[in-house]
C-alpha cells in the first residue's frame, strides 16, 4: 500500500543565514591582487612624499624586473604542480658563464653571450625536468639538489672570484635603454608578452594547465605529460638565465654568490599572484602583480626606513598570508 507523508507546514523553523566568508573571499579572489596592489600604493603614498615620484617608480620597476623574469618561468613550473628552488643558483651560473665570455679577448657579440647563458639555464632546467618527469622524483628534492650543484659549479667555474671588467656589450643589458625604456624592463615586457601568449593561447599552454589540474586525466586525454613537465622546467631555467645575465650587467660584475635566496622572492611573487601550489590554477598577470607587490613593499619599507631584517619578517608573513588565502580559495 502506498502511503503519503503529509506535509507539515505548522512546525516550520526558519533559520538565519550568515554572510559567508567564502563569498567575500571569492570576490577578493577575482580582483584581489589588483585591489591589494592599489590599496598598498595608496597607503604608501600617504606615508612618504617620495613614493609617487617618477624616479621612485622607475626604481621599483627596475628592481622588480629581475624577480619578475624569474617568477614568470617559475609560474610555468608551479602550474604543473611542481616547484623550482634552483632558479637563484642557475641565475648565478648563467651570469658567470656569460660574463666569462664577455671578458674574453675579442669583443663577443651580445647574441653569443645571451645564447651561452640561456643554454646553461635551459640545460640545467632540462636536467630538473627529466628527473621530475621521467624518474618521478619529487620536484622539491630535485631542484633543491640542483640549487646546490649549480651554486657549487658557479664557484668552481670562477674559482670563487668575481668576474670583472665586463664588455660594454654585456653592460648594455643592465644600463642601456631602448627608446628611452631601460633594457631590463623591455626584456621583462617582451618575456611577459611571449609567455602570456603561450600560456593563454597555445596548445602547449592548455597542456600545462591540464597537467597541473590532473596528470592522469591529461594523460588519458592524449597529453604527453612527461614532455610538458620537462618543458616547464626548461622554461624556468631559461628565464633564470636571462635574469642572471641582466643582474650581472646591472652589478657590473658576475659574482658567484649572486642570486642567493632569489628563488624565494620568485616563488613568493607567483603565490601572492594567485597561482595555486597544487597546480592547474593561476596566471602570469597575477605573477606580475605579485612581483610588483613585493617590489613595492620592499621600496615602501625602505622609504619608511624600516630595517631590512624587519622587511624579511614582513615579507615572510605576507607569503604565509597569500598561501592561506589560496588554501581557503580551494575550500580546505
Amino acid at each position: 500500500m502506498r502511503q503519503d507523508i503529509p506535509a507539515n507546514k505548522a512546525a516550520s523553523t526558519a533559520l538565519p543565514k550568515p554572510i559567508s566568508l567564502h563569498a567575500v573571499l571569492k570576490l577578493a579572489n577575482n580582483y584581489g591582487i589588483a585591489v591589494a596592489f592599489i590599496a598598498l600604493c595608496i597607503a604608501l603614498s600617504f606615508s612618504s612624499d617620495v613614493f609617487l615620484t617618477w624616479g621612485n617608480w622607475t626604481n621599483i620597476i627596475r628592481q622588480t624586473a629581475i624577480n619578475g623574469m624569474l617568477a614568470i618561468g617559475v609560474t610555468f613550473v608551479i602550474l604543473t604542480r611542481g616547484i623550482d628552488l634552483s632558479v637563484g643558483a642557475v641565475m648565478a651560473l648563467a651570469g658567470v658563464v656569460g660574463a666569462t665570455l664577455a671578458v674574453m679577448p675579442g669583443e663577443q657579440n651580445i647574441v653569443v653571450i645571451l645564447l651561452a647563458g640561456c643554454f646553461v639555464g635551459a640545460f640545467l632546467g632540462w636536467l630538473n625536468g627529466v628527473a621530475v618527469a621521467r624518474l618521478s622524483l619529487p620536484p622539491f628534492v630535485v631542484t633543491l639538489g640542483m640549487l646546490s650543484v649549480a651554486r657549487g659549479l658557479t664557484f668552481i667555474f670562477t674559482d670563487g672570484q668575481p668576474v670583472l671588467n665586463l664588455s660594454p656589450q654585456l653592460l648594455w643589458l643592465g644600463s642601456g635603454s631602448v627608446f628611452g625604456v631601460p633594457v631590463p624592463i623591455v626584456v621583462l615586457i617582451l618575456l611577459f608578452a611571449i609567455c602570456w601568449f603561450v600560456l593563454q593561447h597555445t596548445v602547449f599552454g592548455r597542456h600545462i594547465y591540464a597537467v597541473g589540474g590532473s596528470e592522469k586525466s591529461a594523460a588519458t586525454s592524449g597529453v604527453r605529460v612527461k614532455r610538458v613537465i620537462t618543458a616547464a622546467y626548461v622554461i624556468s631555467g631559461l628565464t633564470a638565465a636571462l635574469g642572471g645575465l641582466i643582474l650581472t650587467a646591472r652589478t657590473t660584475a658576475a659574482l658567484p654568490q649572486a642570486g642567493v635566496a632569489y628563488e624565494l622572492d620568485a616563488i613568493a611573487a607567483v603565490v601572492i599572484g594567485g597561482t595555486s601550489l597544487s597546480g592547474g590554477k593561476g596566471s602570469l598577470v597575477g605573477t606580475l602583480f605579485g612581483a610588483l607587490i613585493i617590489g613595492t613593499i620592499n621600496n615602501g619599507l625602505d622609504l619608511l626606513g624600516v630595517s631590512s631584517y624587519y622587511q624579511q619578517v614582513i615579507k615572510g608573513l605576507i607569503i604565509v598570508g597569500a598561501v592561506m588565502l589560496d588554501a581557503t580559495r580551494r575550500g580546505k
Partner: protein
Amino acid sequence: MSSLLVEASGVQKSYDGVPALRDGRFKLARGSVHALCGGNGAGKSTFLSILMGIQARDAGSIRIRDEEVNFQSPLDALNHRIAIITQELSPIPYMNVAENIYLGREPRKGVVVDKRTMRGNARALLERLNFDIDPTAPMVSLSLAQVQLVEIAKAFSFDAEIVIMDEPTSAIGERETHILFNAIRSLTSHGAGIIYVSHRLEELFEIADEYTVFRDGAYVESGKLGDIDRPHLVRQIVGREVAQPRKSTRSEAGKVMLDVANLSQSGQFNDVSLRVSSGEIVGIYGLMGSGRSEFLNAVYGIGPREGGTVTVDGREVMPARPDESIDAGMAMVTEDRKESGLVLGAPIRHNISLSALTHLSWKGVVQRRKERTHAAEMIRQLNIKTASDELPVSTMSGGNQQKVVLARCLSSRPKLLICDEPTRGIDEGAKQEIYTLLDRFVRSGGAVLLVSSEAPEVLQLSDRIVVFKKGRIKETLPGHSASQETLLHAAS
C-alpha cells in the same frame, strides 16, 4: 519507544536563492532498509547532507527518535547515532586500514595510541563483516573496491542506529555486494534503520523494503517496494516515459576496428585476444578482480602490458602511448572520471577540447572561436546541462560530467570507443541518454568495447558479451540470448 527512527517533513534548503529542496519528507522505521530514489537535482544529496549535519536547513522539521533536532555539525549527527557511507572515498593513503577506520577515535593507552588493540578491533570488525582485508595493509595498496569496503566497515564501527549508504556498491563487485547485504540484514535485525541510495535499481528491489522518491527538490511518492515494479519506479524517478534503444534493429557488424592479440600483463590478465568490429558493442563482464579494467587500460595505453599486440583499423599501437591511441582512432572513458577523465578545475569547454586541440588549432595556437563553436555543438548534441561552457566541470552533476567525458572522447572523431563502467554513479535519466548515445555511435559505424559490473546494463547494450574470469576470457556469449543467471554463472 517510537518505531520511527527518522521523521522529516517540510524540509527546505536554498543556495543563493536557488531552491535545492522545496519539500523534503521522509520516514525511516526501525529495522527497515529504506531506498531514497531520485535523479540528479532531485534534492536527495541536499536532504542527506542536512540529515548528516553537514548543512543546516532553511525550514521544516526533522525528528530523530521522536526528538526534534537541529544539527550544527556532523558531530551532532554522530552523537545521535547517525553514520554515513559516502560516495566520495577519501582514505588517508599512507595510513593502514585500522588507522583509517578508527581515525580520530583511536584506542589509547594513556597518551599513546594502542596500536595492538586498534589492529585487533579492526581485524574483528572486518571478520565479523566477512571482508577479506588485512587491517595492517596501507590504504594506498588497496583496490578501489577494497577502499569502499573499508569505508563501509568504518561506518559499521560507529555502532550507529541510522546508517546512510550513498552508492555503497558503486565500486565493489557481486560477491562483496552479497556480503554487504548480509551485513545490512544483520544490522536491521538488531533494530537499526538504513537509508539506501543507489542508482542500481535491481539492488534496491533486492535489499530494500520501503522507498521514497524525490524529484525536482520535492517529495513525490513513498511506499513498499514489494507493491511496485521497476518500470513504475523509473517512471516516478524520471517523471516521464523513457524509450530504450533496441539493439536488435542494428545491422550486421562491419570491418574489424580493434584487434587485440595475446595481450598479457603479469598478475592482471593473461593471453587475451578479442576483436571488435564497426557497428557492434562488445561488453566485457566479470567479477571484481577478474582483470577487466586493467585489460582496458592496457589496450588504450594508460596501463601496462607486456606481451601481445593491439591494432586499430589496421594500425598497430605501441604500449603506454595514449596520444598514439587517440591518433589511431581510439578514445576512452575511464572508470573514475574525477581521477583520470576530467580536469575538474578547468572550464567545460577546455575539457571537451583537450583531446582534439590539434584539430582546433593552427600551428600550435588555439583557434578560440572554432573551439567555442565545437564545444557548443557537443553540448547541444549530448544534451549537457550547463549555464555556460566557461564553468568548471567540478560544478556539474555526475551524469553531466560523464557526458563531458564523452564529449571529449567523441571530439577526436574515434573509430573505437572504450568505456569502463560508463554509467557509474549516474542517475537514471542520464544513464538512458548515454545508452542512446552509444547506440547512435555504433549505428554510424563506430565500435564500442565496454566493461560493466551491472549485468542488466551489459545485457541491454552488448551484441556480444565476453566473460572474464581471473584474467582470462572464460567464454563469449551472444548478447540477445544471455541472461543474468548465465552471466553470473560464467563469471564465478
